[in-house]
């Protein structure tokens, strides 16, 4: 298969040599691989963006999951922000609350767009709709945000993993946060190389994160991990825009993530057998929700 880039280095080099945005390279590659028109591809991403907008809107009105473990935190955060005393700042908290909103909808079996997975679906839209208020992007720039995220996610998915069962939460929320961080840079007018630095800085701070869902539900700690993934993405983007660089190149950070995932015991890879899922409270919640055992005899 002919592709325009196989790793971040090739992606950044191509963008800088051709004087193009990373989102543009992703769109061109999609046209090349799928034989679809630019218009068709842009329209599909526009529809995905609409799904994300609807999910955030729904979450900000307040949703609750069937288990009762999650829901309503996005509303709490928005109310708190409106009081005007937030310590971390409105943009950061807005990103956090919108990431939470999306994942609360996901936990309640609502409709979402996986970015790159459902469990990590809050980070990319959460950050997008928060920086939107500051940067006032056009609709096309918002769609491009998703292509830039997708370009970096494409590299991670093919060279490492985006599956919690294979690589832990670092592969899911870690990837999502790093993808978002790279996309923020492009929207803010930074260079492709700065996108790569932001990605590396974010991913480095997500390394080792395990996937330990309480009762096997995509709720605790997933919703709050999306919140912090969004915060991480925004802060790392600011660092890269300030000129801070990563000593370890982006592709090597991705390789490290993959290696850590491979070495991770299965208890920490989405089996609900270790970490927070195995705490006394985690087990108690599991028993309460599933009446004694999550692994039953089927129907």
């Amino acid at each position: 298969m002919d592709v325009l880039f196989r790793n971040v280095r090739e992606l950044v080099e191509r963008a800088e040599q051709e004087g193009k945005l990373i989102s543009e390279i992703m769109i061109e590659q999609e046209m090349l691989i799928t034989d679809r028109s630019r218009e068709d591809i842009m329209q599909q991403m526009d529809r995905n963006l609409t799904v994300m907008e609807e999910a955030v809107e729904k979450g900000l009105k307040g949703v609750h999951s069937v288990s009762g473990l999650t829901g309503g935190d996005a509303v709490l955060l928005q109310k708190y922000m409106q009081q005007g005393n937030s310590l971390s700042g409105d943009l950061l908290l807005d990103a956090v609350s919108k990431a939470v909103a999306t994942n609360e909808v996901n936990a309640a079996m609502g409709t979402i767009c996986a970015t790159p997975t459902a469990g990590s679906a809050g980070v990319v839209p959460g950050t997008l709709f928060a920086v939107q208020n500051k940067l006032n992007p056009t609709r096309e720039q918002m769609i491009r945000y998703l292509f830039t995220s997708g370009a970096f996610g494409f590299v991670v998915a093919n060279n490492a993993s985006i599956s919690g069962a294979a690589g832990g939460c670092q592969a899911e929320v870690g990837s999502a946060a790093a993808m978002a961080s790279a996309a923020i840079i492009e929207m803010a007018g930074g260079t492709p190389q700065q996108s790569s630095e932001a990605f590396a800085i974010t991913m480095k701070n997500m390394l080792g994160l395990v996937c330990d869902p309480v009762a096997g539900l995509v709720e605790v700690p997933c919703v709050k991990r999306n919140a912090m993934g969004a915060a991480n993405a925004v802060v790392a983007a600011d660092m890269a825009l300030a000129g801070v660089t990563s000593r370890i190149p982006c592709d090597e950070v991705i390789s490290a993530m993959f290696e850590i995932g491979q070495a991770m015991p299965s208890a920490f890879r989405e089996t609900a057998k270790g970490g927070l899922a195995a705490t006394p409270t985690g087990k108690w919640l599991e028993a309460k929700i599933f009446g004694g055992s999550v692994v039953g005899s089927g129907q």
Partner: protein
Amino acid sequence: MKFKSVFDIIGPVMIGPSSSHTAGAARIGRVARDLFGRQPAWAKIHLYGSFAETYKGHSTDVAIVGGLLDYDTFDERIKTSFEEAEKLGMKFEFIPETGNVDHPNTARVVIGDDKSEMSMMGISIGGGKIEITELNGFPLRLSGNHPAILVVHDDRSGCIANVANCLYKYDINIGHMEVSRKERGDMALMVIEVDQNVGVPVMEELRELPNITQVTRIAD
């Protein structure tokens, strides 16, 4: 490259809560139904690894049943698939397995009715993408890099030539092909990876060929 499209990363649009355990599971169910060619009367679904440990929490069970009812990943009816299955008279049971498998998210879907039955093994590799690793005891070695056509047929001379001719007619190039059979003259399976997407007219023409039992495509 297993993930080809940007929409494998930004997508799919789906009912929560998990791309691998809900959307991927729904897709495994739907491919099985597609291969079977009709609504099965019953289904026995064996779950392995993370699927076995967390299927209730991730709604893997309702998603697979939804897939067997031909629902897409974003179909709201996934939530009530058990009730829908009951209305349609489809019986199903889930069997969590403890055996070791190569991939943590593995399901074996055994489905059938009074005419025939079928067994398929699928894995969910993340972000909603799936691979089919076994069909009726035939191991499938699909790279996942290209669209593929699965043809279940009777082991008779001319079958392979007919299928290849039909693809040639539509200018579809074969990149990789494998044929396996249970016993001489018995059921056989062609697995064909192609470079171009296979349209509905091609599929219909393949189905009309002599000694062909079932034709399914797996989108890349």
